[in-house]
């Protein structure tokens, strides 16, 4: 007998439909699995055999062939266990699978259905492919139930699923997970009120948060760069529904979603160590590339401490995502694109010993060492970081005397207002404005345009640098609620371009 069951395999944030066909025919007792299965799928044979037997079902003592179609597509992962087992069991009893239903899940030897990664992504794509019902591991059901209009059947055990299919028992579908946006996250983990002094860096953080600009903090050890960076998520608005969804999909692929709470409204904050590999930061791995830290921090903050200590090729690879907000990685299993629209907050010492420019402690580095260190933060990368500020070390004794900062809550209100203004005007943040739209949407007073051009000539700004300064000026104007970009906004924006040196 022949039975066909639908499933899918994931390639990045896309799922491709896979038909699992099981055919049992007279002949020698054998189990063939064909259709370009990778090792993890070939192993399904053993798991499925045991799971079926241990679920009290009959495993055919015939010549059994399971085909995974389309045959030219390479299949990976353990999610095909459940559909293979269902197809075999259905073929044995001569039943057809329900129409427009898909199955995904790994099997334990006792027939229990185990978690697989990426169920949310699979559910989204299956719905789009016209499926109505999705059988998923019970552990992943709340994740799949985020997709409206898809009936999600939580599967605990193979036996239960099979009984459900035969109409003997019923499994209640998982209810659609309500995605009402929770109120703004109440607790701010790192509050700006704790930061004494550092007015310049505080302002830069506010501008970065308001316009989605990238930020570089440069200063000696112990000057509070890390503390400042950790304050950034606290002044950002909670995620929007679409954003939260994108964040959840990346987490789903990585098996990183908390089961009870698939949608999280707080913005991601990722701080990979400077030893991180290319695959770890950008994404990679064998077969189909998995998302890296830049995609994990999508719609949030990517904090790179000790920027100059990162491997040079890894830093260079940041350039494309910084510019486009996504990253495309090609591996043997095909090419995938992941979202990577993060706010980069980088921190660096001014020199290897860290004390260059400190008013009290002398720097011990030779000029050549300092030059080499700063060269590692290559021009092209720095050119993409809109806001660059020096952070000064506040001596311990003076710390108490420094004015206590404004709390994050107050800063966040200004940031939210500025972001709202941008959304109404252009539907995106200033940092994402294309040059052509800048001209129409970010009009400047005549004098301020002249200022920008003068700087550009004096410092030999690239076209990219020119547009980036323009965008920052737009954000400064938005924070003030100004319609036109005035001279003071341009001047402030240029003040953050630390690494422009006279040509």
């Amino acid at each position, binding site marked *: 007998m022949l039975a066909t069951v639908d499933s899918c395999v994931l390639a990045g944030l896309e799922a491709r439909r896979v038909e699992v066909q099981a055919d049992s025919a007279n002949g020698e007792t054998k189990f063939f699995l064909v259709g370009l299965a990778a090792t993890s799928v070939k192993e399904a044979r053993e798991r499925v055999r045991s799971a079926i037997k241990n679920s009290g079902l009959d495993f055919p003592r015939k010549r059994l062939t399971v085909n995974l179609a389309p045959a030219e597509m390479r299949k990976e992962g353990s999610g095909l266990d459940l559909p293979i087992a269902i197809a075999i069991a259905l073929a044995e009893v001569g039943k057809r699978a329900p129409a427009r239903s898909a199955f995904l899940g790994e099997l334990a030897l006792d027939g229990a259905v185990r978690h697989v990664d990426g169920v949310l992504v699979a559910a989204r794509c299956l719905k789009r492919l016209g499926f109505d019902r999705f059988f998923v591991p019970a552990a992943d059901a709340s994740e799949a139930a985020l997709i409206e209009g898809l009936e999600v059947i939580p599967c605990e055990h193979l036996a239960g699923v099979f009984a459900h299919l035969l109409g003997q028992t019923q499994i209640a579908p998982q209810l659609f997970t309500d995605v009402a946006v929770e109120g703004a996250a109440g607790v701010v983990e790192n509050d700006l009120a704790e930061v004494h*002094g*550092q*007015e*310049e860096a*505080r*302002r830069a953080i506010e501008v970065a948060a308001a316009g989605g600009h990238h930020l570089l903090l440069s*200063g000696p050890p112990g000057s509070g760069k890390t503390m400042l960076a950790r304050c950034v998520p606290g002044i950002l608005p909670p995620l929007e529904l679409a954003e939260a969804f994108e964040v959840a999909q990346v987490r789903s692929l990585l098996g990183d979603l908390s089961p009870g709470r698939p949608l999280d409204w707080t913005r991601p904050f990722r701080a990979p160590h400077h030893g991180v590999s290319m695959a770890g930061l950008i994404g990679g791995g064998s077969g189909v590339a998995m998302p890296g830290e830049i995609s994990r921090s999508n719609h949030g903050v990517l904090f790179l401490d000790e920027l100059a200590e990162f491997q040079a090729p890894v830093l260079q690879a940041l350039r494309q995502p910084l510019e486009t907000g996504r990253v495309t990685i090609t591996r043997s299993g095909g090419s995938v694109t992941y979202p990577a629209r993060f706010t980069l907050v980088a921190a660096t010492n*001014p020199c290897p010993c860290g004390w*260059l*420019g*400190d*008013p009290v402690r002398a720097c011990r580095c030779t*000029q*050549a060492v300092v030059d080499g260190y700063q060269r590692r933060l290559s021009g092209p990368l720095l050119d993409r970081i809109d806001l660059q500020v*020096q*952070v*000064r070390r506040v001596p311990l004794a003076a710390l108490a005397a420094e*004015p206590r900062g404004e709390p994050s809550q107050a800063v966040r209100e200004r940031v939210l207002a500025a972001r709202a203004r941008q959304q109404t005007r252009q539907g995106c943040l200033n940092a994402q404005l294309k040059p052509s739209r800048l001209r129409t949407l970010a009009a400047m007073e005549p004098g301020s345009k002249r*200022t920008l051009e*003068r*700087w550009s000539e*004096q410092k030999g700004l690239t076209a990219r640098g020119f547009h980036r300064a323009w965008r920052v000026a737009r954000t*400064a104007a938005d924070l003030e609620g100004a319609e036109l970009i005035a*001279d*003071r*906004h341009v*001047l*402030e924006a*240029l*003040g*953050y371009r*630390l690494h422009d040196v006279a040509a």
Partner: protein
Amino acid sequence: MAIVGSRRPSPYGEAVAEQLAADLARAGVVVVSGLALGCDAAAHRGALNGGGVTIAVMGTGVDIVYPAAHFRLAEEIVAAGGALVSQFPNGTSPRRRNFPARNVTLAALSDVVVVVEAVQGSGALITAEAALDLHKEVMAVPGSIFSPLSVGTHALIRDGAGLVQNARDVLAALGVGREVLDDPLSAPKRLGFGLPAQRDGILLHLSDVLAVSTAELARKLHLPVAEVLGRLTSLELDGAVRRHGAGYVRALRTGKD
């Protein structure tokens, strides 16, 4: 005449070295220095700007430029009719112990040694000592009493070195010009240059030597940081201030009169 000083001068020291060298070069004086980073390079550059001849006394063989970044400068020195001089054979690479010997040679080649900025125990002070041993005249440029870079020069002045406020002081010591110290109550005419015409409140709070941060200025002036940063940028565009370390300093105009 030799101009020596710190390899890592303040913007003030660099400006003084460059301006002094330019003025002296215009007066026909040959400026001798060590082709090192900082004051030395500023002195050579100033002399070239002043259309003069300058000699670089090197601590390496003449075929090796150290630091390598000064290769162009070395070429320009030769092209302008100056010379690269070394007591070491060709192919001598930079070695720590060679530089004090070079400093002695530098002093020997000059009639007057002017120290621009020097921390205590620096190579510039070794040159000054060597000059005294060779019975040459030593002069020093004063600076801020807050600046560690002026500790060495102030010590020299206290011990009797000539005070340099402008090129005329040096010319007088060389016996070329009239010895006239500027009226101490008015700003020196050729060095220091006073404040730019724009009487911006911010400029009064800035120093030539020590960088002042935007946040500090904002607090002193009771203005928002964003506005102070904008005004500083505007001054930077006009060439009145420049960035230095973690803040801004007043820019001393050099190279042009």
